[in-house]
Structures are given as C-alpha cells and as structure tokens.
C-alpha cells in the first residue's frame, strides 16, 4: 500500500512525459511490421495488416491516462477550465447569474438566520425541553401586574418554591428596571440590563459558568451582594478580562462583587433583550423589582398586591406537565390570596398553567408573524431567482445545442455531457454561494440592528445546513434542468448546417413560458404585499401625535431617593437647573416615558365610585405621573382649565388632568373641571383642573383611550423619572450640558437612553418600518427578476425566430405586425401571471391583516399599483426584443441561411 502511494505521489509530481506513450506505441507498431515482413509479407502488405491488427490508438492512450494518479483531478480541472472559458465568453450571463444568486440566497440566508436565532434556536441551557414558564389565567382582584398572565407576587413564588414537587426547582427572575439600570465599574456611570434571580437560577437552568460560580440558595436568602455577568457583557464591557472576578460592579450605587461569567450564548431568559448581569433577589429600596419606588413603603418582597416576578421551572424527573400542574394548582390558588384577604364572592380564581420555555420568551409574540411572513416573501424571491437562473441556463444551453451535438458526435457520452453541465452548475453555485454567504453576514447584522434584536445572531449549524441545502438544491437544479435541452439536439443536429432552422422547435420554450408566467404571479403577490405594508408605514408616519414633537429631547434619571420629600426636592432642583440652560424653552418630568410602550393602566373612580359605562365598554384608564409644565413642554393643547405648575405641591390640594376621551366616556355632557378622580382602591383623590386634547402616549398606532395625569409632587411615591426638554435648535446638542447639570446633583447618575422624542416614538413603529422596507426591497427584487426573466425569454425567442421573421417580412408582413407578434406573446404571459397572482395576493393580504394599520387587506390602490407595476415592467422588458424583431432585415435574415 505504502509503496503504491509513494509511487503514485512521485508520478503525480513528476508527470510522465506526454510523448512517451506515443513513442512506445510507435516502437511496438514498427516491431509488428518487421515481424510481418520477416514472415514474408511485402512491406506495404505487412504495414497494412499490422495497422489493422494494431487497432485504434486513442483508446489505449485514454486507458493509460486513466491508470495514472490524478487522472480524476485532471478531468475535473479540464471540465472546470472548459466551464470557466465558457463563462468568460459570456460575461453578462455570468454576472447576471452570480448577482441573482448572491442577492436571493444571501437574503434568504439572512432572514433565515434571524428567524433561527429568534424563533427556532433553543435556550442555551441543559435539557431545554423540560423547562416551563409559569402562567396564570388572571391575577386576583386588587393586584397590579407587569403582565396579567406572566407575572406573580413574591408570596406566590415563595409558596411554590417551598411546596413544589412537580417542578424542581421553581425559579423567579425580575428586571432591575423596565429598560436599563445605572451601573458603575470604575469611574464613569453607565447603564446595563440586569435581573434579580433566584439562588437556583443558574443551577436550575443548567447554565454553564466556565469562569467563577453561579448563585446558591444561601445567596438568595442572605441577599448576597454578588453578580454574575454574561459572556457578551464580559467581552463587550470588560474586554474579556480574566481578572474581572472579584472586581466590584456598582448597581444603582450598591457594590456587587463579580463572582462568575456565563457560558457564551447565554443572555438570560428575558424576551427581546440580552441581560448583561444577574444578582440574587435583593431586599433593599435601591434595588426594588423593575426599579420602582417602594409602594406604601413596601418592597416587592413584602407587597403581595404587586405581581411583578416572572417564573420559570424545571419539570422534576419523570413528572409530566399535567401532573406538575395538578400538584401545584392548590398551592398556587392558596398562595395567590396571601395578604389580599379572601376572594370576593363570584370572583374567578386564578388558574396556573405551564408554557413551553424551550425558546426565547417574547420573541415569538414580538417577531413571530412578521418573521414568518418575511421568510415566506424571501422564499418566493428565492424561487423566482432560481427559476430565472434556470431560464438563463436553458436559453444559454439551447444556444449551445450545436456545441453539444458536435461533442456528442465526437464521442462524448451523455455521462460526460452531464458531468460537464454539473461542473458548470457547481462552479456557479459555489461562487454564488460564497458571495451570498458574505452578503448574508452583512444583511443579518443590518437586519438585527433594524429589528433591535439584541441576542446573538451569529449563524450556527442550522443556518449553515440550511444554506448548504439551498445551494445543493440549486446546484442539482442548474445541472439537471438544462440537460434535456442540451441533449435535445442529438448527434444529428451537428450535421444540419443551418443554425436558424434547427432552432425553431416551438415546444421547447413552453417550460420557459410557464416559468415566466409563474414568476409574474409571484411578482404580483410580492408587490401587493409590499404595497400594503408601505401604505401602512405611510399611514403610521403621517399619524398626528397630537403634540409638537420636534425640538423635544428625553432622557431618564434614576436618583437614589431616601425619602419622598427628598425625591421631590431632587427633581425640583434638577428642573430648575435644566430650565436655565441656554437654549432651553421648558422642562418637565414624567414617570413613564411617552412613546416607549409603557403606561400605568388601571380602573379609576370618578367622584368616589367606579363610573358607569355604556354596554360593558372598558373602564381602563392609562395614567402617568407628570411634572409642572408637562403639556406646555409637549405642545399638547389644554382645552379647558390649566397645566400642572410649580405651585402644585404636596401641601396644596391634589390636582389631576384628563384627556378628551376621559371626559367623553366618564363625564359626558358636563364640565369635567372640579370633579374628583382617583385610583380604584380609593386611597388617593385629586380634583380635575385641566382637560387636554387627545394625543399619543404609548405608541404611534394606539387608539385614543381615556388618560389621566397625576402631579408627581403630590402622590405618595417618587422614583426614577424621565426628563423631557423642549429646546431651540438641534435637540441632542443640549445633552452634554444636561449631563453636567445632572451630575452636579449626583456624580453617579448617567443619562438613561437619551434621544429625541421623535426617535422614541419611532421605535414603536420600527418593526413596521423594517417590515415595509424589506417588503419593498423584496418587491423591487421581484420586479427586477421578472423583468430579466421575461426579457431573456423573449429576446431568446426573437433570436431563434430571426429567420422566420425574415420570411414573414419577405412575404409581406409589416413591422407593426411583427412587433405585435412578439408583444402578444408577453401579453399572454402577463395576463396569465396576473390571473394567477391576484387571487394568491388576496390570500397573502388576508394573512397580513394583523400587520396593517389603516389599510384594508383588499386595498384597491395596492392592487392597482402591483398590476400596473407588473404590466409596465412586462411592456418594458418586451419592448427591446420587439424592437429588435421589427428591425430584422429580411434580406440579411434569409441570407444567413
């Protein structure tokens, strides 16, 4: 074996000389001739017989070559060289195919990467199939929640944790802030996303901690001041410093010792974001759940009316989900009323259920439908693109029929032709695939940024397999689809002399015509989809917000507040400092940042009782806590009464402001000023002193809803606030001086997510923007593909029919008739495509309904636009070939025969 390998290697490097074999054979032949002569034949006869006996040389040559090492490589290289030469001769074709493949496969891979990362990939934990989220049908009466189905009180967590046998362990986790929390490592204050978690969090999930350690149950009971940071945060913020363990991270001013770094890929179980660090559940006012100020002096641990913790559990070994629920249900239903008193009569008790936790929570809700839709769209584009390349290849190979015939006539077998075609396809697909992968990398990153997906989108094995699958499919398709056309000529064709007459078989292009018609149908679908989404986006962008949005800048502050008067004083101080900055017109504060999806929702009492509402309409009021000059700063018109002012203080009568909707629904046909309103627990009342015009609170696409505002200086709690400033000129330019003002009050305070108010509102439609942009580009791509596909097919047909057209013109056809002949062709294709596409588009429009805003799924405008678009493109793509057909010179066309 070894000898053979070494020998072959030697021959592979030092090739046998080309002429050697020929010399050898020549010698053999001469010997044969002399042998015959020696046997008595004449020289001529000896030569004749010897040559007959000797037989063909070519086969021997080939067989000898086949024995040699690297013969296989030689063949492939030869095929490849041949293919490359052919591509080089036809650069336009090559560029068109590569560009099509790059765009289509790249876009598909990118969308798939995102979908994979967001919807398909499992949590990077041990045995994710056994993890479940805890859900409740509803919270008990008299409680406040973060999410009415997904959050629980600490007392529920505590009971479940102690008494659960079905789930082991039950873990709780809760963010330290609705967005980011102030942290400090070294000097500069900054912000990061952090969660408080159970002591069993890392061990229960089965998260690896290659560096340091996780938490223990003791850490939870002792509220240990320690932190684990994510791999992502470690590399991003700490430059993967191995000495980070033992260092101090200040979280809201509280020193935490870093004890561990999670394995790469684990970014928490919070949906839609990536958690930077975790600390054990704490019990101190600076680190209350969600960063809220304590309510009635109670932190989340003591406040059983605040359902704010999320929970995740691991099914105990050999326990089914149903068994676990059965065991936990009574425990849960008892624990739910701890501290709340007994349930009211007829009150529906909350019911516990378990939901799959194997993939990231929230993502499905947030991105599920849009992503699936995008995947479908990009899939259609991919299909069209592949079809286009097949069309191009078919046209190209039809034009090469003579070449194939000649090769067959010269002895190339079908196998060899197939090998040649597959080699060509392999080269195209490999080159296209490499380009597409590069394109996909960039596109994935862009997509992630636009969609504000913070978790890692790095392609994993699934993505790689997906792309490889697409490529292999494309490779086989491109290799095999043109084969029938290539072989159709057969050997005989080489013998026919006329290129023109041999190419007139009409039937061959039927496949091509069907493909083009299907492409048009898909194009209509994509254009209608794009039209609907772009129309939606226009509607959203042009939705009036009800305020003067330009010139507003917003940022959050999260001061350390030891007592309510000190908190109020801090904000009053801060506003006073900010108001006098040059260029500032007015300043106010608010608890919930407007345009960030957040709001306080509750029922409200009017004049001491819950208001009557007609036929079961909702009593929900969205409220916010605001500072002085709130509406003047926002530019919301005050319709009656007044705005909050500095003179509304804790000592003055409690005042509140409502919007038109509130007045209309709960105080119809009367002057709302002077009525009292308050939360439904009756513990706080305020007198309405102003009615303002309806405006947007949470997002751009919300419907008008009753809203009410509390004065921040009067309510019994004060926590982190957002500062809103109206400034002259560029809003963001005020930030450095604002930052200085904040840090004069407390050097530990960063500005949290500073941005213009318009940007803030735009985040609520960022998904629509992304969706519309992508749909638009896919639509454009589809149009481009249809145009090239149609143009290619028609141009090819005109070329093939040059002789026929020449004859027609010679016998009296006029140019308009010839043009019509070609246009008729494309007209048929277009009509057919549309007839198929419009019903399909209606189905798609129905599926899109939930993503539309102010647009009917059967929006006539979008359909007209799509149909017109396809028609124009079809016309444009056929104009050139028709023009060429009309300019055929009959004499020349006939003479080439």
């Amino acid at each position, binding site marked *: 074996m070894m*000898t*053979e390998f*070494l*020998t*072959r290697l030697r*021959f592979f490097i030092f090739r046998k000389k080309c002429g*050697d*074999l020929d*010399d*050898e*054979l020549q*010698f*053999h*032949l*001469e*010997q*044969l001739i*002399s042998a015959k002569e020696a046997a008595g034949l004449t020289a001529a006869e000896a030569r004749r017989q010897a040559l007959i*006996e*000797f*037989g*063909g040389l070519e*086969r*021997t040559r080939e*067989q*000898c070559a*086949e*024995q*040699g*090492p690297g013969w296989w490589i030689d063949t492939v290289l030869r095929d490849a060289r041949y293919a490359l030469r052919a591509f080089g001769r036809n650069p336009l074709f090559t560029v068109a195919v590569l560009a099509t493949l790059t765009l289509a496969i790249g876009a598909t891979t990118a969308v798939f990467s995102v979908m994979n990362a967001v919807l398909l990939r499992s949590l990077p934990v041990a045995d994710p199939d056994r993890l479940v989220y805890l859900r409740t049908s509803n919270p008990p009466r008299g409680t406040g929640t973060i999410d009415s189905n997904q959050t629980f009180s600490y007392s529920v967590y505590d009971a479940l944790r102690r008494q659960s046998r079905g789930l082991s362990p039950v873990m709780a986790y809760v963010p330290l802030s609705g967005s980011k929390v102030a942290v400090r490592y070294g000097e500069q204050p900054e912000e990061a996303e952090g969660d408080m978690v159970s002591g069993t969090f890392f061990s229960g999930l089965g998260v690896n901690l290659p560096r340091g350690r996780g938490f223990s149950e003791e850490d939870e009971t002792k509220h240990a001041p320690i932190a684990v940071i994510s791999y992502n945060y470690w590399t991003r913020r700490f430059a993967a410093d191995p000495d980070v363990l033992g260092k101090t991270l200040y979280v809201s001013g509280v020193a935490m010792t870093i004890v561990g770094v999670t394995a790469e890929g684990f970014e928490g179980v919070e949906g839609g974001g990536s958690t930077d660090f975790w600390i054990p559940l704490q019990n101190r006012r600076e680190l209350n759940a969600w960063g809220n100020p304590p309510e009635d002096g109670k932190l989340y641990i003591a406040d059983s009316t605040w359902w704010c913790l999320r929970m995740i559990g691991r099914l105990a070994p050999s326990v089914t989900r149903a068994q676990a629920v059965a065991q936990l249900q009574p425990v849960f239903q008892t624990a739910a009323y701890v501290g709340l008193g007994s349930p009211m009569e007829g009150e529906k008790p909350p019911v516990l259920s378990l939901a799959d936790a194997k993939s990231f929570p929230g993502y499905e809700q947030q991105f599920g439908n849009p992503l699936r839709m995008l995947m479908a769209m990009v899939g259609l584009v991919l299909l069209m693109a592949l079809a286009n390349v097949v069309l191009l290849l078919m046209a190209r190979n039809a034009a090469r029929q003579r070449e194939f015939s000649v090769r067959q006539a010269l002895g190339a077998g079908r196998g060899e032709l197939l090998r040649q075609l597959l080699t060509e396809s392999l080269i195209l697909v490999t080159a296209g695939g490499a380009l597409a992968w590069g394109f996909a990398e960039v596109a994935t990153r862009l997509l992630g940024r636009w969609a504000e997906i913070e978790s890692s989108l790095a392609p994993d094995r699934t993505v790689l397999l997906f792309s490889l699958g697409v490529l292999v499919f494309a490779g086989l398709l491109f290799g095999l689809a043109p084969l029938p056309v290539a072989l159709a000529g057969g050997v005989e064709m080489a013998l026919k002399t006329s290129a023109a007459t041999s190419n007139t078989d009409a039937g061959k292009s039927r496949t091509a015509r069907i493909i083009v018609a299907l492409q048009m149908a898909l194009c209509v679908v994509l254009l209608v989809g794009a039209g609907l989404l772009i129309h939606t986006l226009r509607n959203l962008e042009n939705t009036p917000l009800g305020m003067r949005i330009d010139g507003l800048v917003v940022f959050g502050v999260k001061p350390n507040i030891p007592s309510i008067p000190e908190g109020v004083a801090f904000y009053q101080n801060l506003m006073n400092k900010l108001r006098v900055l040059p260029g500032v017109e007015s300043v106010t504060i608010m608890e919930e940042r407007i345009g960030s999806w957040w709001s306080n929702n509750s029922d409200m009492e009017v004049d001491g009782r819950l208001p009557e509402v007609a036929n079961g309409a909702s009593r929900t009021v969205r409220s916010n806590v605001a500072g002085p000059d709130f509406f003047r700063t926002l530019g919301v018109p005050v319709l009656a009464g007044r705005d909050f002012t500095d003179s509304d203080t804790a000592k003055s009568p409690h005042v509140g402001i409502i919007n038109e909707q509130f007045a209309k629904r709960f105080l119809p046909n009367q002057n709302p000023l002077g009525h009292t309103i308050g939360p439904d627990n009756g513990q706080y009342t305020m007198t309405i002193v102003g009615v303002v015009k309806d405006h947007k609170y949470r997002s751009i696409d919300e419907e008008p809803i009753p809203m009410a505002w509390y004065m921040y200086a009067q309510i019994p709690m004060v926590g982190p606030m957002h500062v809103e400033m109206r400034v002259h000129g560029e809003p963001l330019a005020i930030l450095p001086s604002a930052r200085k003002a904040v840090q004069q009050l407390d050097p530990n305070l960063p500005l949290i997510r500073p941005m213009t108010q318009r940007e803030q509102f735009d985040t609520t439609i960022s998904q629509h923007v992304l969706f519309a942009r992508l749909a638009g580009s896919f639509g454009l791509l589809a149009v481009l593909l249809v145009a090239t596909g149609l143009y290619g097919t028609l141009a090819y047909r005109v070329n093939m029919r040059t002789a026929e057209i020449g004859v027609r013109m010679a016998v009296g056809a006029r140019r308009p008739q010839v043009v019509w002949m070609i246009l008729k062709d494309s007209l048929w294709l277009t009509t057919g495509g549309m007839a198929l596409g419009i019903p399909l588009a209606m189905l798609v429009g129905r599926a899109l309904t939930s993503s539309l805003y102010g647009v009917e799924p059967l929006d006539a405008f979008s359909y007209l636009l799509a149909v017109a678009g396809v028609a124009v493109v079809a016309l444009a793509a056929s104009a050139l070939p028709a023009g060429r057909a009309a300019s055929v010179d009959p004499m020349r066309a006939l003479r080439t025969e």
Partner: protein
Amino acid sequence: MPTSTDLLQGTLDLLILQTLALGPMHGWGVAQRIQQVSKDVLQIGQGSLYPALHRLEYKGWIRSDWGSSENNRRAKFYRLTAAGRKQLETELATWDRLSDAIALVLGRGAEASS
C-alpha cells in the same frame, strides 16, 4: 488466426510480472514472449498491454527506463522492482491455490493424476 483466450481478470498482471522476472524487457518483447511461451494461445494486444504496464508501474511493481533495443532502436524497458518481486511471489502462491482448488472442483485434482 488462433482464437485468443480472454484472460481472467488480474491474470495479465501475473503474466507480465512473471515474464519480467526473467529480466528487463520492452513492451513488444513482453507480448512476444507471452505469445511464444503459450504457444500462440495468449496474444496480448497493445490495447491491453500498455494500460496494464502503466498500472503496474503506478503501483510501484515495475520500473521503466529508456534504452536501445536489439536492433538499436530507442525503446522503453520495464524491469521488476523489489516490491514487484514480492508481489509476484504472493500472486503465484494465490494462483497455485486457486488453480488447485478449481482442478479439484473439476475432478482433475491431484488424486486423479496420482
């Protein structure tokens, strides 16, 4: 022309190796030798001979060098390598075993002749 007998797969290699065991020889010589020794039963055409020679050479069992023939013509001479000699021994042993076995099956075995 005597009908040429189709050679068993692999047998040609054995014949060539055996022939070359006598000394270096060119392709024509190998073919002639096999034909003579087999009393014209085995005629090796160039179409099988040269691919076989090349195959053996690539396997490292024979080597080739250019030299001059008896009538002073340039010819390629093949000779057995050490590996080839070993291969010949193995193949001969295999052949013996095989032909004995076939002979036994055909009822012309050793007992019949004894």
